């Protein structure tokens, strides 16, 4: 009934991964041999039979997806007319929307926490995009919101973003831009 420790480790990593992961990367992350990882993947594949999940691979890249039979439920959930973002992702989106163009370092310094994962999520939802590189040390990417973002939030343009007043009554976007 119990799974091997390697299979549990592979499952956890694939669960959080937002893109397919190669067997070599899995082996490196888990600290296991290629053979053990191959066995773990076979074990998982077997295990997911009859569950809501399944293991999918293209060549040597693996990912967990929902089982095709569950498609009606998944689209009922995702298709509902409501944007679903974690509160972390919503905060990151707010920073990018009000401050664009913003680099990852700027977003992180404003939020005070690492934003790698949320930026990736927002990019894959096409709510934000890379605008180009800033002419600054390290040439960081600048991020901005997309056309889909305006569409999703029902905004005619960025000027239609709700204006937020700071406690001093300054419009927050002005306050930040003048910093």
């Amino acid at each position, binding site marked *: 009934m119990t799974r091997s420790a390697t299979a549990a480790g592979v499952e956890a990593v694939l*669960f959080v991964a*937002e893109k397919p992961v190669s067997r070599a990367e899995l082996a490196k992350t888990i600290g296991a041999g290629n053979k053990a990882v191959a066995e773990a993947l076979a074990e998982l594949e077997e295990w997911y039979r009859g569950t809501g999940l399944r293991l999918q691979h293209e060549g040597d890249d693996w990912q967990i997806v929902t089982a095709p039979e569950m498609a009606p439920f998944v689209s009922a959930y995702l298709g509902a007319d409501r944007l679903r973002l*974690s509160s972390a992702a919503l905060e990151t989106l707010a920073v990018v929307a009000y401050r664009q163009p913003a680099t990852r370092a700027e977003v992180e310094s404003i939020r005070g926490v690492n934003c790698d994962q949320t930026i990736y999520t927002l990019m894959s*939802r096409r709510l934000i995009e890379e605008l180009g590189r800033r002419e600054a040390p390290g040439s960081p990417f600048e991020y901005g919101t997309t056309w*889909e973002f305006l569409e999703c939030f029902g905004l005619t343009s960025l000027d239609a973003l709700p204006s937020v007043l700071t406690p001093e009554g300054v419009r927050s976007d002005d306050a930040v831009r003048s910093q």
Partner: protein
Amino acid sequence: MPVGPRPPDVSVAGFEGPLDLLLELIEEKKLDVFSVRLGDLADGYLARVRAMATLPADEVSAFLYIASRLVLLKARSLLPSLSPATDDDEADTEEELRLRLIEYATTKGRAEALGDRMRAGERVFHREGGTVDLPPKGGDPDALAAAWLKVLAITRRSEEEVEVPGERYSVEQRTAEIEALIAEQPAMTFGTLLGERPTLGYAIVTFIALLDLYRRLVIDITQDELFGEIRIERKVRRMEGISE
């Protein structure tokens, strides 16, 4: 995950606060928090506060508050006529302080349990998603504005917090100053000791120093009426050669 510098959380001389110091004293003496007479801890407590090299001004008042209550409890046990004026004055009873100590001990135990979990590092992770191909829809601009406001509020606080820590005083240093002064001048008032426009921290450190000198029988403290001037007098040593 934090990025960038953060102001450190201050802890004074290894203690998280006055209640922590008091608990430590009880443990050191292998006493029972349920039965110890808290007034008996006044001397040990003041000695510890005195030994602290420096205290940030705003922390001193917390230590002073407990010190003054311990001294009051001790005084009451020596002079039973000093029993509380009214029973409404619940804040002054020994039981109230004991309950606070017990509650703090519980909190400390919980904090340690959380700390153990934190150090074990066995956190969990959720999925941020990302494998979804459907175009996003149904965003709420007000929710977005609220998130922005929240981030702004936290950022603003971090800017406010970067103030330089205020003045620091050493109780020991202040005690030595007053002791030298009283050796030359047999009587003075609390007001003169404070001088013009004292800061709160300075007043508190001066007051703790006086409590300590009083405990060590160096001075006498009198006050003729409530809120009247506090007079400080050099204590006449009845028997020369007695040291603490």
